[in-house]
């Protein structure tokens, strides 16, 4: 009973995480185990965001080969238009779709849409904001990402134009 001091709270929840100065740093950011789907969605949004930024910079560099003429362009295509390159592009399609749909959910959430009415915190203290609408939004984002990847796969590996 009662509230434990901060240091005890940290050590009882941290598992293998080494805590210095009350901060968990990158490992705390990546650790999804203490929370639910919302935490998975939180770091998926960040991981896909960083991944897409890296892809964006790579895509700009890849496209810049255009200015060096047809031979440079074709050489770049030989590197990227391969089975491995297409699989990488499928991951980009999945990441961008998830990031978009989950990002829209977050914009609605920050605007107060879909988080429910505030209520008295009763045991087991489930936050009313983490309701089925939020969880559904995360599942819809994952589902649409999968569908987009399937369609992308058909375009790149199949006959769909």
């Amino acid at each position: 009973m009662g509230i434990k001091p901060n240091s005890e709270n940290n050590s009882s929840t941290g598992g293998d995480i080494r805590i210095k100065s009350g901060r968990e740093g990158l490992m705390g950011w990546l650790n999804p185990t203490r929370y639910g789907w919302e935490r998975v969605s939180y770091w998926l949004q960040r991981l896909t965001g960083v991944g897409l930024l890296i892809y964006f910079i790579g895509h700009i560099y890849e496209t810049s080969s255009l200015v060096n003429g047809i031979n440079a362009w074709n050489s770049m295509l030989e590197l990227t238009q391969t089975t491995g390159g297409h699989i990488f592009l499928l991951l980009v399609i999945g990441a961008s779709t998830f990031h978009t749909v989950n990002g829209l959910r977050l914009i609605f959430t920050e605007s107060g849409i879909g988080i429910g009415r505030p209520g008295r915190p009763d045991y087991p203290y489930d936050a009313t904001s983490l309701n089925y609408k939020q969880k559904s939004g995360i599942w819809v984002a994952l589902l649409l990402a999968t569908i987009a990847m399937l369609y992308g796969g058909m375009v790149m590996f199949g006959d769909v134009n």
Partner: protein
Amino acid sequence: MPLLKLRESQIMKIHYLTGICAVFFVAIHILFRIGMGMSFNESLEFHNVVANYHNIYYVILLELILVFISIHGFNGLRIILLELKQNQWWESTITILVLAAMIGVIAYGTRTIIIGSQL
């Protein structure tokens, strides 16, 4: 150091707006690859890509994508890095580095668009 003297709430509005706009612009960009009556691989042939760059509306679209995704992406990176650690030196350094990287990427991409449209 405040980012261009903007409040974080204003920066987040810019973040959301650039994200939403980028989705629409990128969707049009993808349509040029798979919705122009040719296969994905054909659309990537040199003369087809150069022909795209001679279309002024497509060039404007590419520039908008470049600017909007750069702002959204690098501000997102700034937010992530500021979540990890907070102090005056870190926040100032990250803001300056992210702004410099953003300007560099926009300048490099704009160079490609300008030269590509003159091929």
